[in-house]
């Protein structure tokens, strides 16, 4: 009997110790990716600026083909900058301190939309954000990220010459609020839906957008940190409905990390 008790105590100690080790390994890895992303920026700036100067100041002295190559370097560097920004955003989301408060989702969605519309190329989208959505207990910055990334995808992945249409709605489900974002985009094949929210997952080669893989991972990480869940229902050619379930009740402040 004594032996069993010893074993139990021992086991608990070992679990605690391993958990701590695992936590510190994760923290180290996050700090590592953060540093890498920062350090990558310095040489990238040099690549971008040198090729930019090449085009603007030496352009006339370079053959057409050569100018084209130099411009490709500039645009490659810009894509990489976007990627690094997304990576940093992801790593920041895992480290930032959270401040939970009761938020009106429509305000956060409207604010995220405002930033997106100013930089939107293509047909002006029709976005409907329902009024009087039930309040959620969330972190403002994380919720902003959720809407920003969902809406940005909805505006981007539509068929050619199709006006993007998005609707943000929500309803109370017990102690939770279910928020939905429905679009008329190109849709996501069933075999890809399960992989959609993982970091660095690329979906198909035709999407000339390097950041996509990280952006949905940002959403998932943000939602998980707010003790919620997210998912997607979609049919190719018919659009997608992304959903987020978040707590609607006030919790102890300072809580989850």
């Amino acid at each position, binding site marked *: 009997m004594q032996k069993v008790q010893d074993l139990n105590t021992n086991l608990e100690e070992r679990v605690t110790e391993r958990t701590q080790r695992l936590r510190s390994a994760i923290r180290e890895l996050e700090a590592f990716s953060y540093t890498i992303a920062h350090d990558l*920026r*310095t040489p990238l700036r040099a690549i971008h600026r040198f090729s930019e100067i090449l085009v603007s100041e030496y352009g006339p002295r370079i053959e057409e083909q050569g100018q084209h190559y130099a411009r490709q370097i500039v645009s490659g560097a810009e894509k990489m900058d976007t990627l690094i920004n997304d990576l940093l955003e992801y790593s*920041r989301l895992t480290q930032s301190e959270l401040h939970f408060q009761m938020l009106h989702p429509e305000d956060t969605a409207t604010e995220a939309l405002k930033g997106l519309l100013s930089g939107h190329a293509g047909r002006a989208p029709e976005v409907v954000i329902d009024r009087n959505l039930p309040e959620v207990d969330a972190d403002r910055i994380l919720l902003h990220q959720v809407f920003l990334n969902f809406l940005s995808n909805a505006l981007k992945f539509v068929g050619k010459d199709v006006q993007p249409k998005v609707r943000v709605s929500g309803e109370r489900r017990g102690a939770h609020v279910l928020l939905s974002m429905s679009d008329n985009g190109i849709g996501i094949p069933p075999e890809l839906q399960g992989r959609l929210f993982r970091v660095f997952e690329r979906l198909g080669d035709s999407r000339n957008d390097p950041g996509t893989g990280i952006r949905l991972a940002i959403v998932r990480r943000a939602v998980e940190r707010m003790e919620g869940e997210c998912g997607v229902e979609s049919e190719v050619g018919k659009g997608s409905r992304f959903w987020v379930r978040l707590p609607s009740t006030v919790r102890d402040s300072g809580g989850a990390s």
Partner: protein
Amino acid sequence: MTPDPVLLLVEDDESDVLFLKRAFQKAGATFRLQVAQTGRDAIAYLAGEGAYADRSAFPAPTHVLLDLNLPEKPGLEVLEWIRSVPALSGIHVSILTSSRESRDLRRGRELGAECYLVKPMSFAVLLDLARSLNEWIRTGQIPPAWEWPAEVSGRSTK
């Protein structure tokens, strides 16, 4: 009589130094530009010690443009040191960094930097920055857009 303006650029990356020199030149900068490549060098320069004792070759700066990620001594420690020296109380310090972390922004503000600039990717934008900085140094009026923001945005630096 106010001294001739001297900008001390504290930056370890050589190509960043090169681009800034080029940008200041194109912006028609009217101040004298000096460079320190480490945090320790910056402090030695500002104190007029060691290799920097000769003030005719290394005139005392009126403005500092400070990178945060520096060898030997981080930029924020350099800033903290500057603000602890009464003789340097009139010096204008701006941060120029690739970090968009809110904690860097917050510390920079607490320690007394006058503005926080994020290094742009593009040379064209860097040139705008050099022009604004030159105007600030020339007129003594900080560009309104450079007043402290609530937080650094996560994106958008082209």
